[in-house]
């Protein structure tokens, strides 16, 4: 009986100490882990949508609260700031639009006047070789220099973006995502001042 009690106490003690140490380590490494994830997963697309800057946009990022999702959890967006000589010269942030197979996430680079400096598809699951061709530069470069206006639409709807042939739904998803991103722009601009 004494032995049983001892086993329970020792094992419980060891597990409790282990949980304590791991919880602490998890807290301490949280910020650098997030930084590394952004640096290696999102940095390539951030770099491609921003133009001249001399800072580290991943370090100079701000997290903006974006209301709540349909389950009531708070949503937030990472906004990456590009600075040159301490002055903000561009922003990059992600938005999503519904494609043919699911959400298409697009990283959008915007300069302080609200003009697009570049877009890059970060995640998509469109049909390979068909819808997935929206990631190609020949499609994404059309967005460069556009603002939130009527021309930011597919040409079939009177805009100036030519859809990838045979992939109208995917192309529309990208346009929706970019438009969503630009609709957020005044709010983000107000936040960063």
């Amino acid at each position: 009986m004494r032995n049983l009690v001892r086993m329970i106490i020792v094992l419980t003690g060891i597990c409790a100490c282990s949980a304590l140490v791991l919880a602490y380590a998890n807290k301490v490494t949280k910020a650098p882990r997030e930084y590394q994830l952004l640096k290696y997963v999102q940095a390539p697309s951030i770099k491609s949508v921003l133009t001249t800057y001399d800072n580290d946009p991943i370090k100079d990022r701000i997290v903006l609260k974006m209301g709540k999702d349909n389950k009531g959890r708070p949503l937030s967006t990472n906004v990456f700031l590009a600075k040159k000589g301490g002055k903000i010269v561009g922003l990059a942030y992600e938005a999503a639009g519904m494609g043919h197979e699911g959400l298409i996430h697009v990283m959008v680079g915007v300069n302080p006047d609200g003009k697009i400096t570049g877009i890059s598809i970060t995640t998509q699951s469109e049909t390979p070789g068909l819808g997935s061709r929206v990631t190609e530069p020949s499609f994404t470069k059309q967005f460069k220099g556009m603002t939130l206006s009527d021309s930011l639409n597919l040409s079939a709807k009177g805009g100036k973006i030519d859809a990838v042939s045979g992939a109208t739904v995917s192309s529309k998803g990208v346009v929706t995502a970019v438009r969503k991103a630009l609709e957020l722009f005044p709010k983000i601009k107000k936040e960063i001042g």
Partner: protein
Amino acid sequence: MTLTQEFTKGLWKEIPPFRLVLGICATLAVTTSAKNGIGMGVATTFVLVFSNLLISMLRKFIPRNVRIAAFIVIIASFVVLAELYMQAYAYPLYKALGIFVPLIVVNCIILGRAEAFASKNPVLPSLADGLGIGIGFTISLFVVGGIREIIGHGTLFSVPVMWSSFKPFGVMLKPPGAFLCLGLILALMNFISSRKKG
């Protein structure tokens, strides 16, 4: 045995995975390059040294019946620590090793040393044992990874080392290459030992 002997036995006499044929899963799976081999070796050494240290300190408190469970909790905690810090400060390596980082928990070398050595010996010899076996394991992984990288890719630490017309043997980077390489090194080491004795 002296402390130095406890340390050096891990470098030749009991070097894993060649002499103690344990920890084969990690050895075969992650040694596609010298860098991955060393990364895996260092992570394993960290876990081995600290779990040996802690288990040796607690050896009089842990009841015999639950010792394996207690050892596994201690080992698993250090593995998660290693995983978290790797993710935070060595992300590309973490990505390259993938699932094999959490799998260090079930690496038989660590549980083997805990059960066969640390649970029966004082702190200092356990520390020397862990360090020796860990460094031995790192050297072995580096050798296997290096050979596979040179033959399978023509590079060492991503630097080209072979002549320019060298055609890499892609099979060395695949699982059969790992078995080939491990088996040949094992044979070579046995040959050298038998010559020494005879």
